[in-house]
């Protein structure tokens, strides 16, 4: 299958998709406020007429590219393009201030590619066996697994747990609208035909992440022209020997990024800071951290890029997205007819392995285009919001419309944008809402199927060892979360 998948990559459109994805990802990621989630959501309409393999390679290229792109503005402006680049900004900006911006960018690029490569290998090794195990899951096991995934997002997603729980429940409520998955009864459709299919994922997430950002920009509009000062990029090189010296940091950070990334809801910001702290604690010169240490740039970059492969493991093998970006990717896979979950590898093995191999091979063009695009990205950073965000608004309307060629979806997108603005202003996290929307319907379906087959007895959820182990994981997660809260309270 691996060879068959490789031959599927020998197509000019696959190469073009990979290059376009990486290039646009790097450029979009460099712009503060435009993260990978928004970039992928807005580019989904472009992939409608494409075959599944080039389409997904384009979107995953955007994902990879934009995570690295986020470090460009972090290093040069101290403004992280993506939240996960915040750790990179600490030492990257310090390096840029002493005239080593070009060197910091090169280290970030090589670390990103290393993290990416490592996590892709783990993805290839883990996803298929995990999916094979999940093939044996019945409704009770799936219900317990989804309960665990939903709970982990609430407990470990960062920020207020109660706010995350509220957002997750709001997402599940939004997923209830439409026809009942078992009996086909309309629910909260108010007699309209358009609501019978429920809220489509793509218009909702385009509204939540793209349109709400337009509203936020309008709300935070600064008076007068603010000139962006970008430090001069002097010619610089990073030798293989320099990278060899930080090999342990690169490896450990990639391990952290990949395996923490597998956990639902954690995202890429937490592993980036975890790796940064680990690199500082292992360093012989910890005082250099914060003043422009090379390892302070390499560690978070390797980690946040390694998350890309790790987060795709549960997304593709179980159909459970780990964060907002993988939720968008899950939606894109579904639109291409490749429904993520245990059956994906059985039914579309060649396509999935071709995508994995492309992710692995695309490390080379990422280095090449990354080096070429530093200067371009600097010009893009200078684009003023009043010229950039009208484009986002127009693409959001097009993106929402193109899913079903329906104006109803555009109205849903606008409503989601207004709600997204309100939630973001209030500090309520959006990823749990999105995950709730995605997992709500399958969770209910599994729960009800399990209860219907057992005649309404909840015993079914503890009967099998797999189902029981997921419940034990739920209990363990709650205990760990409570322990950390107790410990933090004691420290304060």
């Amino acid at each position: 299958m691996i060879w068959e998948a490789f031959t599927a990559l020998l197509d000019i459109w696959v190469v073009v998709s990979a290059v376009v994805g990486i290039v646009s990802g790097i450029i979009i990621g460099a712009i503060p406020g435009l993260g990978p989630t928004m970039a992928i959501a807005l580019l989904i309409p472009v992939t409608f007429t494409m075959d599944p393999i080039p389409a997904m390679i384009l979107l995953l290229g955007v994902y990879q590219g934009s995570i690295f792109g986020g470090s460009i503005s972090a290093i040069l402006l101290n403004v992280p393009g993506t939240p996960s680049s915040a750790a990179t900004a600490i030492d990257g900006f310090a390096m840029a201030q002493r005239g080593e911006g070009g060197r910091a960018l090169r280290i970030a690029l090589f670390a990103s590619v290393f993290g990416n490569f490592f996590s892709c290998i783990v993805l290839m090794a883990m996803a298929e066996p995990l999916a094979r195990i999940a093939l044996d899951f019945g409704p009770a096991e799936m219900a317990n697994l989804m309960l665990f995934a939903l709970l982990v997002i609430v407990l470990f997603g960062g920020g207020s747990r109660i706010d995350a729980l509220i957002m997750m429940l709001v997402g599940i409520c939004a997923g209830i609208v439409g026809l009942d998955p078992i009996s086909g009864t309309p629910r909260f459709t108010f007699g309209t035909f358009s609501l019978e299919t429920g809220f489509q994922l793509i218009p909702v997430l385009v509204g939540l992440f793209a349109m709400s950002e337009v509203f936020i920009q309008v709300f935070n509009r600064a008076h007068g022209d603010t000139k962006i000062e970008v430090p001069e990029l002097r010619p610089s090189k990073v030798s293989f020997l320099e990278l060899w010296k930080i090999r342990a940091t690169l490896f450990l950070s990639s391990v952290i990024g990949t395996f923490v990334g597998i956990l639902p809801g954690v995202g890429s910001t937490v592993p980036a800071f975890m790796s940064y702290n680990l690199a500082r604690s292992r360093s012989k010169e910890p005082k250099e951290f914060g003043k422009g240490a090379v390892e302070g740039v390499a560690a978070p970059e390797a980690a946040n890029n390694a998350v890309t492969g790790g987060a795709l493991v549960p997304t593709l093998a179980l159909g459970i997205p780990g964060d907002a970006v993988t939720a968008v990717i899950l939606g894109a896979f579904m639109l291409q007819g490749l429904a993520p979950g245990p059956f994906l590898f059985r039914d579309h093995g060649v396509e999935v392995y071709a995508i994995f191999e492309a992710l692995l091979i695309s490390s080379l063009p990422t280095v090449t285009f990354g080096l070429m695009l530093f200067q371009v990205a600097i010009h893009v950073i200078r684009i003023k919001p009043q010229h950039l965000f009208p484009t986002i608004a127009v693409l959001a309307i097009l993106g929402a419309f193109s899913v079903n060629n329906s104006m109803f979806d555009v109205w849903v997108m606008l409503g989601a944008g207004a709600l997204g603005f309100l939630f973001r202003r209030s500090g309520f996290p959006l990823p749990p809402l999105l995950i709730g929307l995605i997992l709500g319907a399958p969770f209910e379906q599994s729960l009800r199927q399990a209860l219907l087959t057992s005649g309404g007895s909840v015993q079914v959820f503890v009967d099998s060892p797999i189902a029981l182990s997921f419940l034990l994981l739920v209990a363990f997660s709650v205990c760990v979360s409570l322990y950390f809260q107790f410990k933090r309270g004691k420290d304060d």
Partner: protein
Amino acid sequence: MTNANRLTRIGIQSLTSVILLVSAICALAIVDTQIQVFSLDDEWPNARSFPVLVLGVLTLTILFRLALNWKCEEGPIGPSQQMIRVIALLLTTACALVCIHYMGFLVGVALSAIVTSFALGERRIALTFGLGIILALIVTFGAREGLSIPLP
């Protein structure tokens, strides 16, 4: 501390929580009319069980949050001028979507782009209109000819 950043007893978090709470209670109130359970489907759990459970938990969680933060200070709703700007953009974008129905996609998205650019502070008329129209032309023809999307 400026007026805009001053913390208040009842701020945007409570406002959002109250909106969600009212929505959840309304949904619970209309659940019987919006989800009909027929005699064939009356075995527990039916089509109504899960929504009632989720809405009930949501209502209790929001009430708990409100009670927990009752004496905490919160962020302000925001300066009225800034909120009005956002509401105005929301309403004009809604008008642009109505325009799509009557005048086509090109006119609607051009209007949306012009309004967004204006709301973000662009005051050079030629640039505001020029950017909006060029953007709308590129996106409309690109989507129609390049991506074969049947735009209205």
